[in-house]
């Protein structure tokens, strides 16, 4: 049921990729995404795909897990493909039927857009598959810390994100429980018109809201009991440290970006 959703799921492991500093992984994911958008030739896509495949292999993530993660995107991918296929201009017409017309340029555009989306999403999946949500928030906080000078509450934002991520499984469990309880009282969540079904969600949403507020209260109380206060001067249990592997990873990332640019130049 609800428990089966995989959203940014983390697969624990002990590979080079898992051990990399989360800041490195976050930045390299950005480099990878930027590279994808700089691609100007089929060779560039091949290079990005090779990079993705290499990281997948090194991190022992099963390709099937990536494919499974891509499934919900089918609609967006098809939609993009269709839009690009039919609405790209050009002279070398490939196919024409009444008002529908497909050009070579359109076909090329559609295929390259689909490849780009798939590569982009699988790349970000690799980040969340190999990095725990806590490590990602940690890295985000460190990377954004210069913004503190501009009075952006970086620490509070990352704490909020951290708590939100922590409570997703709890909320799912709670939803399951309340759903069972209301079904036991004859709630019918599956049939009826749209309005009826929306109404039927109320018995589910209200207890969920109430319990979320209760939980937030309890959490705040528990944090205060342990003398929690704000970000200034806090130390952390796990210090983030860059190692030589991170330097190597950055070098590879730079090589990928350079390679993509070079291929674009050469038009391969």
């Amino acid at each position, binding site marked *: 049921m609800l428990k089966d959703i995989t959203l940014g799921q983390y697969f624990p492991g002990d590979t080079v990729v898992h051990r990399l500093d989360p800041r490195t992984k976050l930045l390299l994911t950005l480099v990878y995404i930027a590279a994808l958008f700089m691609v100007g030739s089929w060779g560039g896509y091949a290079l990005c795909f090779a990079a993705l495949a290499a990281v997948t292999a090194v991190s022992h993530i099963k390709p099937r897990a990536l494919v499974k993660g891509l499934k919900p995107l089918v609609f967006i991918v098809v939609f993009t493909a269709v839009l690009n296929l039919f609405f790209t201009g050009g002279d070398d017409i490939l196919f024409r039927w009444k008002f529908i017309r497909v050009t070579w340029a359109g076909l090329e555009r559609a295929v390259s857009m689909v490849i780009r989306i798939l590569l982009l999403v699988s790349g970000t999946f690799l980040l969340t598959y190999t990095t725990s949500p806590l490590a990602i928030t940690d890295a985000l906080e460190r990377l954004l810390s210069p913004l503190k000078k501009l009075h952006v509450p970086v620490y509070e934002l990352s704490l909020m994100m951290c708590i939100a991520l922590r409570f997703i499984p709890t909320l799912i469990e*709670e939803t399951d*429980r309340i759903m069972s309880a209301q079904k*036991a*009282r*004859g*709630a019918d969540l599956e049939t009826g018109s749209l309005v009826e079904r929306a109404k039927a969600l*109320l*018995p589910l949403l209200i207890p969920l809201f*109430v319990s979320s507020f209760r939980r937030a209260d309890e959490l705040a109380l528990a944090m205060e009991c342990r003398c929690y206060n704000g970000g200034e001067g806090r130390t952390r249990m796990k210090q983030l440290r860059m190692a030589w592997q991170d330097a190597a990873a950055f070098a590879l990332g730079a090589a990928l970006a350079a390679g993509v640019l070079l291929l674009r130049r050469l038009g391969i």
Partner: protein
Amino acid sequence: MSLIEIRGLTHVYSQGTPFEKAAVRDLDLTLERGGTVGLIGHTGSGKSTLISHLNALLKPTAGTVLLDGEDIFASKASIRAARFRVGVVFQYPEYQLFEETVYADIAYGPKNLKLDTAEIDRRVREAAAFVGLDEGVFDRSPLELSGGQKRRAAIAGVLAMEPELLVLDEPTAGLDPAGREDLLEKLFAWREARDAAVLLVTHDMTIATRCDRLVVMAEGRIVLDGTPEAVFSHGDELASIGLELPEAANIARLLRDKGAALPPSLYTVDALAEAILALWGKGGAPC
């Protein structure tokens, strides 16, 4: 015909994944009309999975659940009928309250039954009276009630559906001893008055002693089934699956080990006290 008949029930969670786990294995159980059955077992023994099958919230991986001899999964209508004929009160039911007023919340179940207003009104008042909820709170928000009152309101919400079998999962968890005793009294009174069957899931052995029949589960199977007397005479077996005897039964056992000539099957405080006094009356120290 038995009210509920479970044949070869097996339930496997997350089948086909690395997290696969059989919570209930090849289980047979019959529940008759009338009487209170206690379902006891350690955490993770499959009690909650079992009760979720009784009103068709979970579909068995294998096996059937018969209500009055008919498969409850036969059709959508039969599933719906099972939801109304078997009332389930889950653990901490107060978290399911959602309506604006206590009255509306208790009326939620009967409303789903599509009853007319007069009938709903009768049922709400009756259910509230059974659990000892004053009509003065009907217009208040259920969220303003005290913890004990919330619990009562939530249970009343299920009673108002007038189920033939009432299943309660740890109904007294988190209540103080007086509140616990009071709630149990009221549930027993309700069962008598409506001639319904009650299935009580509990960890509390003192509550278990008050049932007519006890079913003990371990690792997804039923290991003991019988009267409290019969079940509590298997002290060692209960201990081996991590369950304790009721305190009175434990004391009786220790006294017997010391050589006291106590009769067998003592498991309530009253019976134990009587037996000890009787020994005393005959003269001679019991030990």
